């Protein structure tokens, strides 16, 4: 099966590991990720102001492409997923934004939120199935692993509809499927400090350390994430408290996929 895929700029540069392992694993599981043509950076943060239109157009273009190419848009970076999913909701439900975006783009047919945005984890769960992943595992990851959700996959839950925002389970289910033991810790859905290091370098340091200490106290041996910025903040500010990896790196290890 083929799915239209939006990689995003960070996965082409500093987060290549996330992109490469994800593609190889998907292939091993029977899913072909087809990178959409001429995609542009989504802007990394969803513009909340209701009069922001231009900053949403790259997401709309990607969504419209997916609408005509299978109907689904696969995302991997948590930030891209958040921006694109929230923009899609605007195009579905906000008449003013839909009108103004379409008025600018002048597509052959106006875009109205028809595409379905699917995160790679959701694809693993609903398209492949965790049971099938379990069957495909040749090298179970027999470690205690802490899932780090952060914010962007979960919130705002009314729009993201990803998982229970206070007690999510999808990454823990994923960890079980690849043979690991999930470690539940209180800070797994707390923010790591995000992008504020340019204005307040202390805040990401404190927040990231809290996340890692919380996971370590509960017995985690490593942390997995789907967000390049989470990975960076936890690695750089956590001062080696615990190893931090992309969830797809562990999937590749479990499936015996050579990178």
């Amino acid at each position: 099966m083929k799915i239209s895929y939006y990689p995003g700029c960070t996965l082409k540069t500093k987060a290549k590991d996330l992109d490469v392992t994800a593609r190889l694993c998907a292939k091993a599981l029977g899913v072909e990720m087809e990178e959409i043509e001429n995609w542009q950076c989504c802007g990394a943060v969803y513009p909340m102001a209701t009069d922001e239109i231009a900053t949403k157009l790259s997401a709309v273009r990607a969504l419209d492409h997916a609408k005509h190419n299978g109907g689904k848009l696969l995302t991997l970076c948590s930030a891209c997923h958040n921006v694109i999913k929230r923009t899609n909701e605007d195009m579905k439900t906000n008449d003013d934004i839909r009108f103004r975006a379409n008025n600018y783009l002048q597509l052959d047919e106006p875009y109205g939120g028809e595409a379905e945005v699917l995160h790679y984890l959701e694809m693993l769960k609903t398209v492949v199935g965790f049971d099938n992943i379990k069957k495909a595992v040749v090298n179970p990851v027999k470690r205690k692993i802490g899932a780090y959700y952060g914010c962007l996959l979960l919130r705002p839950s009314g729009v993201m509809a990803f998982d229970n925002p206070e007690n999510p389970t999808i990454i823990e289910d994923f960890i079980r499927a690849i043979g690991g033991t999930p470690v539940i810790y209180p800070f797994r859905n707390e923010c790591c400090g995000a992008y504020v290091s340019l204005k307040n370098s202390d805040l990401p340091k404190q927040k990231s350390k809290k996340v890692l200490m919380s996971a370590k106290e509960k017995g985690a041996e490593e942390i997995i994430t789907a967000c390049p910025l989470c990975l960076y903040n936890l690695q750089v500010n956590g001062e080696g408290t615990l190893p931090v990896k992309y969830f797809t790196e562990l999937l590749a290890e479990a499936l015996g996929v050579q990178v």
Partner: protein
Amino acid sequence: MTKEEYVETINRISGTDVRKCMKCGKCSGRCPAFKDMDIKPHQFVSLLVKGDVDALLESKAIWHCLSCMACVERCPRGVAPAAVVEAVRDTVVRMQGNNGVKAEDIPPVVDELIPQQLLVSAYRKYNK
């Protein structure tokens, strides 16, 4: 611009109805940047209800909000304090000369590992 025009604009672009706030303080209770904020999330909401534009536009908290949406998630009245913070920040940075990040701030923080995502996010949030 008059005060009334600022109040109207911030209300409109925030897309949230601050009059629904019942002052429970749950948003601030959940905010991970609380300690670093001169004006707390619930105060952004109540100052906008009061129309105290000066206090809002002078706030330094707009640079510390993480857009983590925890306040939005917890509000029992469906108010979005994060959207008020963003509407105030946008109103500030849309004024000439008010960009929060200067080009010369960047090189000292760039290391081998810094993801594009961080710089793109910061530019989108802090600059126009």
